[in-house]
């Protein structure tokens, strides 16, 4: 299936997340964002979730003011991608607890970690929310543990 990139854009055209699985130059990236904003943000309600763009297909879905977009090849299964988006958002929702745009802005790094547990190489890696959640929690506690260690007296003395 190979997703070429994942982009999240707000209704105002602000970028909230980009992840590129194929190499794009800076110029190409800006162009992609620009063109997709123009095409997708102007689409009305009750239309299908697929737009054809430069010989590719961009599958997108709107959640409140955010558009999550994934770009795939023409012959790929569009609905499968659409539900990856839904699954990704559900996972974010579970992690942040009713996720909102601000979560994605101020915890953008966390969004990236979650995305990395769901997609690698533009392919679906794990389809269980529970598993992803568990792994992210484990990562968080590793970071916490390191932080606590840094604050212990013995660590400070050792430094």
């Amino acid at each position, binding site marked *: *299936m*190979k997703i070429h990139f994942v982009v999240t854009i707000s209704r105002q055209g*602000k*970028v*909230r997340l*980009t992840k590129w*699985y194929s*190499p794009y130059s*800076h110029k190409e990236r*800006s162009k992609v*964002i620009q063109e997709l904003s123009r095409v997708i943000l102007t*689409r*009305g309600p*009750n*239309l*299908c*979730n*697929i*737009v*054809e763009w*430069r*010989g*590719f297909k961009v599958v997108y879905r709107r959640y409140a003011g955010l558009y999550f977009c994934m770009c795939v*090849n*023409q012959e790929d*299964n*569009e*609905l*499968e991608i*659409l*539900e*990856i988006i*839904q*699954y990704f958002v559900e996972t974010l929702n579970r992690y942040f607890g009713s996720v909102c745009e601000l979560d994605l*802005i*101020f*915890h953008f*790094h*966390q969004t*990236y*970690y979650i995305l*990395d547990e769901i997609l*690698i*190489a533009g*392919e*679906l*890696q*794990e*389809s*269980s929310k529970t*598993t992803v959640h568990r*792994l992210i929690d*484990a*990562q*968080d506690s*590793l*970071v*916490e543990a*390191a*932080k606590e260690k840094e604050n212990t007296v013995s660590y400070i003395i050792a430094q």
Partner: protein
Amino acid sequence: MALSGMRGLSVFISEIRNCQNKEQERLRVDKELGNIRTRFKNEKGLSPYEKKKYVWKMLYIFMLGYDVDFGHMEAVSLISAPKYPEKQVGYLVTSCLLNENHDFLRLAINTVRNDIIGRNETFQCLALTLVGNIGGREFAESLAPDVQKLLISSSCRPLVKKKAALCLLRLVRKNPDVVNVDGWSDRMAQLLDERNVGVLTSSMSLFVSLVSNNHEAYWSCLPKCVKVLERLARNLDVPQEYTYYGIPSPWLQVKTMRALQYFPTIEDPNTRRALFEVLQRVLMGTDVVKNVNKNNASHAVLFEALALVMHLDAEKEMMSQCVALLGKFIAVREPNIRYLGLENMTRMLMVTDVQDIIKRHQAQIITSLKDPDISIRRRALDLLYAMCDTSNAKDIVEELLQYLGTAEFAMREELALKAAILAEKFAPDLSWYVDVILQLIDKAGDFVSDDIWFRVVQFVTNNEDLQPYAALKAREYLDKPAIHETMMKVSAYLLGEYSHLLARRPGCSPKEIFGIIHEKLPTVSTPTISILLSTYAKILMHSQPADPELQNQIWAIFSKYETSIDAEIQQRAVEYFALSKKGAALMDILAEMPKFPERESSLIKKAEDTEADTAELSAIKSRAQQQASNALVVTGQQPANEPPQVTQLGMVKIPSINNLENNHVDQEVTQTNGTMGEVEPQNADILGDLLSPLAIEGPPGVSGTETLSEDGALALAPVGEQENAIKPVVDIAEKFHDLCVKDSGVLYEDPYVQIGIKAEWRGHQGRLVLFLGNKTTSSLDAVNAVILPPSHLKLELSSVPEIIPPRSQVQCPLDVVNLRPSRDVAVLDFSYKFGTNLVDNKLRIPAVLNKFFQPVTLSAEEFFPQWRSLAAPPLKLQEVVRGVRPMPLGEMANLLNSLRLIVSPGLDPNANNLVASTTFYSESTRSMLCLVRIETDPADRTQLRMTVASGDPTLTFELKEFIKEQLISIPTASTPPVPQQPQPTIQPISSSDPGALLAGLL
């Protein structure tokens, strides 16, 4: 949440958010980048915390779309930090900021490798994720074996394993030549036995990638895939967390069905039955439900199942079930399903013969053309285009025309092009075609490319019956108050040529025609003025007896434009003015344009090109290749051929505006010279065309190309041969041709020597034995044999003795390795001395393209999926071949079979078509399936349409050209070459109708 403590970052993000406009944001970002840059300059003072903070800021800035071209080093260096928090940040930011082409990545390879082979699972995960997301060639080279080891290690836990699978997938996908997956079928089979659905999902993705490159190696995995599908379909042992809205991992189901589509067929009846049971269950058991997510997920599976059913070319019953489903889908409320219904109907049309069933839904499809969603409208347009035939062309094209008026700009050009093509392809009568194109120009002139109106002019020019009608129509459009400039061009052109045919109608006298055209002149652009001037000249010529008033008017215009600043217009004005003073002579000079040679519509070509969107780059490349080979032809011949070649192109393409004048002048000149003049350039072109295979074969300028010539008849007396006092007693060209389809026989013979050849071929290798026989009773001296190999063949000739004793034969083995597909031919330079005569011959060696074929016979189930998967140029090329040596279909089949292109009778439902297949072997392509389809026209055996497909663009092109060479009627030499040979072959043709002659040759 790990970042909560990083206040500096939060503050920065807030500030960015508070920026009122883009400009402010940019200023803030620039300031921050400047700050980070200074901080990084004296890195020593940075704590790990600060480093992380700045790297995060960089990522945030990058994400916003700014270029971050420094600090990569700092991000990469965090990867080698000993502690998890730094490492994690380093890995993530690096994998976002950099891509596989960045040099900095090289610095990280060692650390990444240590993390992968180390014992720390979390580090392994980080490293595998990075490589999986941005790993390039160097990563593949140094890490692939480690990743493979990890993937099959029994101690590797699921969380690492699934990452390893996708990491390997990326490395294989990006650099299949670097990663060694020989013998992986067993391992893959093992991986597909996995119970953990997460790992299985990743492994299945890897499998799809492997099997798409080479399904042959993975037959053993096929039943496993069917097992996986059965498990999911029956919901056996699928943990709750892997069911999505009640559906057992829809993604894994889709992937598995995708994997199965890479196998040409499923032989084993039990597996096949099991699979069809699953598919049947999916097809029947999927309903449209209220929950949108459940709906999407179940239909994702359903559409994949449909694709698999189409691929397997199931029984008619199941297929019509599929069409019925699709027919239902295109009418539902849910837009995604409508979209996919239309898309899949189009796909279905390509694989199976369901045209008639789909036609039943025509009304619904036409409704979709008015859907509020452009995505759906696009699909509807594509489907209408694909399903159009003579029976429904009128309806469909008229719908398209109607839609053109309201369609958005983004679609108009495509719409106009498609309507024009359909009108041309399926026109029930030609006047309808003219109507359509003129309407098209009228409604959407801006979106009608020049090709479209050139084409209508060609048609009208070539069909006398059509001319008065077209002229009348053009005249009618001119009455409109405002008309598009393209309409102006086409009307002016048509009226210039044919308005005299309307002379008796009201409002159509030369004067009136001139008046109505000239009225519009002030509104048109320079190129159109040029066309109008030509029209005036033609009108003047047709107004016989001359109307002095009109004449003066037109002369006045000519003299006005004699001082035009535009060179083109100026030249026309001057020349037409001078010419028109010649009175009666004008008749000859400005006579009607001759018929255009028939050729493939450039529109259709254009449409095919645009369809190949994604492969555009390579398509351009292959076109460039073709052009290059044409260029070879031109330069390889005597340069005298060149000017006529230009004229030829000019005539065919009509006014590429700048050329228009040359074109006219040439035309005029040739016409004044009478018939001779007209035939001349064509003559030269016949040569050009006939000689083309010859010129491509050998690099131009190499002496000896002559002997290489495709046929003795055209060999124009080889230079070497003129020197040789000793003539061959066999026809060398004929012998070569025989040996191209046979593996043993005589290659060359003269009164003293006979060279025989015997060959054995296996895959991309061959072993030939040359038998050099001395027929005389004295010995042959100074025997010398040198191979001149083309670049695609590796040839090794064992040593040839200098002397061949009387009445004896020596054997010289010659080993051949085929490196890549090419039609070039190896040459043996063979010389010896007999008495005082030095005999030197350059002989082509029959190690030609078809020798590296191995026949395969494909069933319909095997053929169509392959045919479908090779969808577009450069892997699939199509060409209309004219000037084919007329032969009955059976003979053509025999010819193909003799070339080891095995014809599968009955595969193509149309009895006039041939479908053939073979496997080609070379070192670069390995074994490669080649598919050929030839569509013949029973009414005209001299032309056919050929489509060639293979997995390699060069191979496809070479094979296409190769077959063409075999089919085109190059006069075969039944007698030894005579220098004058070319003349007689051309003479008889040129005496007949020149139009037909050209048509035959182009």
